[in-house]
């Protein structure tokens, strides 16, 4: 457990570095956004001299490094499940189940990168990547920890399946402002 503690402490350090980088990224974003709005203002004033700068916002979320106790509980649960399967069905099934569990929990164990670009939203994890154009996304739902972008203009059961969920990761205001600018519907 102590080695796990050290590992997570190390990740904590990395996280702090990540946070400062995020702050820097936030600053970069603000400046490009300011340039962009200046460009739009220019366009409004004089259409021939206006230059459009496309801003983008990117951030990384890694739930494993966020809470020590939660991460420890998840890892412990995983170990218990794999141990139970190995004693019941054998080592081969246990390894298979460990692989499946790790794969299904990949977004928890490994960092996921999110990017809001001028044309599309992209989510890149260890095993999967998703990209949706802004033109396809019709509605967004703001939650406590993130925002869900849906391709359906009215409520649908397929929303959680087809939509894109973006956890805030400490950038709530920037993300919501960006989405507000890109999507017409302010719901």
């Amino acid at each position, binding site marked *: 457990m102590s080695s796990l503690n050290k590992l997570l402490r190390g990740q904590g350090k990395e996280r702090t570095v990540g946070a400062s980088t995020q702050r820097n990224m936030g600053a970069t974003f603000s400046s490009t956004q300011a340039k962009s709005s200046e460009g739009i203002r220019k366009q409004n004033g004089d259409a021939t001299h206006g230059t459009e700068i496309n801003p983008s916002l990117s951030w990384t979320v890694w739930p494993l490094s966020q809470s020590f106790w939660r991460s420890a509980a998840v890892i412990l649960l995983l170990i218990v499940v794999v141990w139970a399967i190995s004693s019941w069905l054998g080592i081969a099934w246990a390894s298979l189940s460990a692989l499946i569990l790790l794969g299904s929990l990949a977004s928890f164990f490994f960092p996921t990168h999110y990017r809001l670009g001028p044309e*599309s939203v992209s989510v890149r994890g260890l095993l*999967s990547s998703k*990209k949706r*154009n802004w033109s*396809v996304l019709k509605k967004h739902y703001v939650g406590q920890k993130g925002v869900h972008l849906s*391709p*359906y*203009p*009215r409520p649908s*059961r*397929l929303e959680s*399946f*087809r939509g894109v969920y973006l956890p805030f990761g400490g950038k709530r205001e920037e993300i919501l402002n960006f989405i507000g600018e890109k999507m017409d519907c302010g719901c």
Partner: protein
Amino acid sequence: MAVDLNTRQAELLEKVARRIVDLRVSAMAIFLLESTKPLSFLGSQLLVFFNPIIQPIFNFKDYEEVTDMIENRDNIEFLIQRIERLQEEQILRDQEIKRAKKERKRGRR
């Protein structure tokens, strides 16, 4: 998302999407297509493998076009989006029909 389709393939996808929406199984189709999207390449290779067995029996006209299309995951996403758009149009049409029916009933009274 860059979708690389020729006219024939685009027509084919449009036909498939329209058929799915007409049969009113769009939710099920979207669910199935989205779930199997990561395996699309494997599916296309399976179709290529079974080509010599399937084609002499059924002789599908668009078999190779379908195989080519399934190979690219973006084409599946394109098909899903097409189904979603057609479904939305269908919902609006149904709402208009319902409204017209209601108005007709009111007129009779």
